[in-house]
């Protein structure tokens, strides 16, 4: 086992363990931090595979995302401090069975499918390859992502403003 493999498995185990912790710890704050640990571990694995830019991107984005999540968690949660046990689930057995079945299916597929052998070598600079791709042959992907982000920004503001999406200012029927 090489040092790289040891590091990979350590990160993978921590990532999955933190993922399990998200749904077992007592407070939402700890759940958010556990999710952050899981996401950062996957970002570090990306760094390990040579995806420097995407690894750093995932880590930075997820740290910010979890900070936003922490704010919303405090807004909407009872028991944010974890002073009493928290277990709010419905259909626990069914969900457990479905999740276990999906895991067996995916893991079985991973070992049974004959994966293709590697074609081509690593690019000298993966970041440059990605940049050239999104500014060239993959530009449609970048444009769709950009429009999707814009649509999300409009939709989130429309949904979250106080008057909702129903009434317009100056509309005589909607005025109280």
């Amino acid at each position, binding site marked *: 086992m090489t040092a790289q493999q040891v590091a990979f498995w350590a990160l*993978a185990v921590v990532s*999955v363990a933190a*993922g399990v912790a998200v749904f077992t710890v007592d407070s939402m704050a700890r759940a958010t931090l556990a999710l952050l640990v899981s996401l950062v571990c996957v970002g570090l694995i990306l760094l390990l595979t040579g995806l420097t830019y995407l690894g750093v991107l995932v880590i930075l984005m997820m740290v910010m995302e979890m900070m936003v999540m922490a704010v919303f968690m405090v807004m909407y949660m009872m028991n944010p401090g974890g002073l009493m046990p928290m277990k709010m*689930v419905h259909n626990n057995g069914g969900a457990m069975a479905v999740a276990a079945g999906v895991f067996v299916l995916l893991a079985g597929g991973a070992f049974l499918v004959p994966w293709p052998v590697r074609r081509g070598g*690593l690019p000298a600079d993966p970041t440059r390859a990605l940049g050239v791709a999104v500014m060239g042959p993959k530009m449609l992907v970048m444009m769709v992502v950009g429009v999707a982000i814009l649509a999300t920004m409009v939709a989130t503001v429309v949904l*979250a403003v106080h008057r909702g999406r129903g009434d317009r200012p100056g509309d005589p029927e909607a005025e109280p």
Partner: protein
Amino acid sequence: MTPQEFLLPAAALFAVGLYGALSQQSIVMLMMGLELMINGLVLAVGGFWRLVAPAGADGQVLILVAVTVMALEMAMGFAVTTAIFRAREVDMTDAAGDLRG
């Protein structure tokens, strides 16, 4: 390393996230489950890029899309939560069963 080594933890992350998305009553916890599922996806794609097709940038572009989806999903989810909480003080999935059946 082999693709299986990447796919096994990825499958575990996906399954844990699926459990959370199916079982949690709090909308915020439910979204954490969705994030975990996409997290597993990112791990699997990273492994495929490295071990199957590193020459093209397709895997990298797919990770870029997956990370964007993670951010957009959370933004939309919180906007919907804010809207329904403002209208009806609902923050649990069971209380928002209008479309049930």
